[in-house]
């Protein structure tokens, strides 16, 4: 079915989804998805609104459990019951709504849920100095003008995006899941985000990128997977398809490829 699996056989399989389905009551958001993600690969995930892209990402990140089907992680069957489980296996997420807390600073958002602490006697107190400094480094690395001490409340769309992406850089992830990271930001910031994806790629980090922007996908991805109404309708190496074909696959003008 997919030509990419053959091409990528040299790389180890990082994640292997077998027959994954997810229902919300009567809604079948995902129907029997088979898909492999190879280490260090950048895969584009495309599909119309409601196709099931976010649902798939939430399964990979441990936010949802599949209704049926199995996930193999580096060859072993694996269940992610909570987001922390995915994280401990080197999977980081940038959620579509960014999952930011407006009333906290950029640095505290970056470190949310894994705050850096230091001991003062028996007390564990926040190491704010470290968190501000480290967040500053990450923003500099991302070439973002975001300031660690600013509250997220007063930030632009691009800065908020940078905060959410910076969050994935705290550990050394093996796979970063990004849900529409370029949907709500300026053109200049889009190229920044794409630059970051390329940087992750060059460091051997895999990326699963959801985007509606065809040029983004063709600029950075090795492979593109298309979902339509919860079904996988294509899984192709980027060099073996075209923007027209992918558009057709998304809308249904092209049945399968």
């Amino acid at each position, binding site marked *: 079915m997919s030509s990419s699996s053959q091409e990528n056989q040299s790389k180890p399989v990082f994640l292997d989804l077998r027959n994954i389905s997810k229902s919300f009551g009567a809604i079948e958001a995902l129907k029997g998805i088979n898909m492999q993600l190879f280490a260090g690969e950048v895969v584009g995930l495309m599909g119309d609104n409601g196709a099931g892209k976010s649902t798939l990402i939430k399964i990979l*990140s441990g*936010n949802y459990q599949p209704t049926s089907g199995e996930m193999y992680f580096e060859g072993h069957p694996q269940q992610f019951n*909570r*987001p*922390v489980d995915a*994280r401990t296996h080197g999977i980081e*997420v940038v*959620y579509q*709504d*960014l*999952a*930011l*807390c*407006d*009333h*906290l600073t950029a640095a*505290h958002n970056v470190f*949310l*849920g*894994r*705050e850096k*602490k230091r001991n003062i006697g028996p*007390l*564990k*107190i*926040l190491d704010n100095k470290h968190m501000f400094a480290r967040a500053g480094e990450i923003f*500099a690395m991302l070439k973002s*003008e975001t*300031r*660690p*001490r*600013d509250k997220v409340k*007063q930030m632009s769309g691009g800065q908020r995006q940078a905060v959410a992406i910076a*969050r994935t850089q705290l550990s050394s992830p093996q796979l970063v899941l990004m849900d529409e990271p370029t949907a709500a930001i300026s053109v200049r910031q889009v190229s920044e985000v794409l630059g970051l994806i390329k940087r992750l790629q060059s460091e051997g980090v895999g990326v699963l990128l959801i985007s509606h922007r065809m040029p983004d996908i063709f600029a950075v991805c090795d492979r593109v997977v298309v979902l339509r109404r919860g079904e996988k309708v294509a899984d192709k190496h980027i060099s073996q398809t075209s923007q027209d074909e992918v558009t057709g696959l998304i809308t249904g003008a092209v049945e399968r490829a």
Partner: protein
Amino acid sequence: MNDTSLSKAIDSQTHSFGQEIIRSQPFWVTIAAIVLCFVLSLTGTTNGEQVFFTPENFSNIALNFSFIGIIAIGMTAVIITAGIDLSVGSVMGLAGIATGLTLSSGYGVEAGIAAGILTALACGLVNGILISYIGLSPFVVTLGMLSICRSLALVVSNNKMFYEFGPDEDLFLSIGGGTHLGVANSLVVMLVLTIFLGFMLNFTAWGRHLYAIGSNESAATMTGVPVKAVKLSAYLFCSLTAGISAVMIVGWMGSVTNALGMTYELRVIASAVIGGADLMGGVGTAYGALIGSILVELIRNGLLMAGVDPYWQGTFVGLFIIFAVALEKIRSRRSG
């Protein structure tokens, strides 16, 4: 100046301590409290003799606000998570009865205090589990608890007043009614709790998590914050402060009836909100709870001193709540 030093300069400029303070509601409430003191010292005279600006009246104010303020500290932690605890007044009543009953049955002071505190914690545990783990609305759960605790206080006390506090009576009365270095014990407790919460909010992960939950609960969940445990702890802490306040006030008054704490929830919530805690969540400070409860008491006391019919107190406190919240809205709109 290169790029990073410029941005650092901007950073420290926009985040200077002074700037932060001037932008905060507690700052303006403090100003209001000082102005109010000034006005009252001018008007608060009877036959040309100062009645407001006297040590007696000030220690009176300090006592009155501390019992409310202690609970406002706990309430602030709950409000920061975008929650509410309507049961604090009733929990205080039930805890007070538990303490009174235990002491008057001849048990020692430790047992009496433990009875009050544990009763309050049990209420907080039920509130917290129903809200965090079962997912019920804080308003409804704590409204139910308000009714339950008041009724249990009636049942347990059998509508009797407790005023004989057993073998350790003197010790118990001196805990609630005594002073330390001339400062009323309840005020000392209030100040210690303010410092404690201030420390927790600013320097611990627990504090960050309270703000994160109130700001965006689903984001907190997705990033791995132990949301349920943190919310439960906030309701436990709030009930604990109600229990502490109960023990202190019973010792100070020297008696307890099942009406203890009746309608206190209104004054407690008013104090927290006037002090800048936002019912939408994500905003609130320990100092705000302190200054908010001081201001509410100043308004009450001032009206009393000015000879205004006490029936008007609720109107003035109510107006102040609405005024404080409106002011906050206007300021946050202006700063974007």
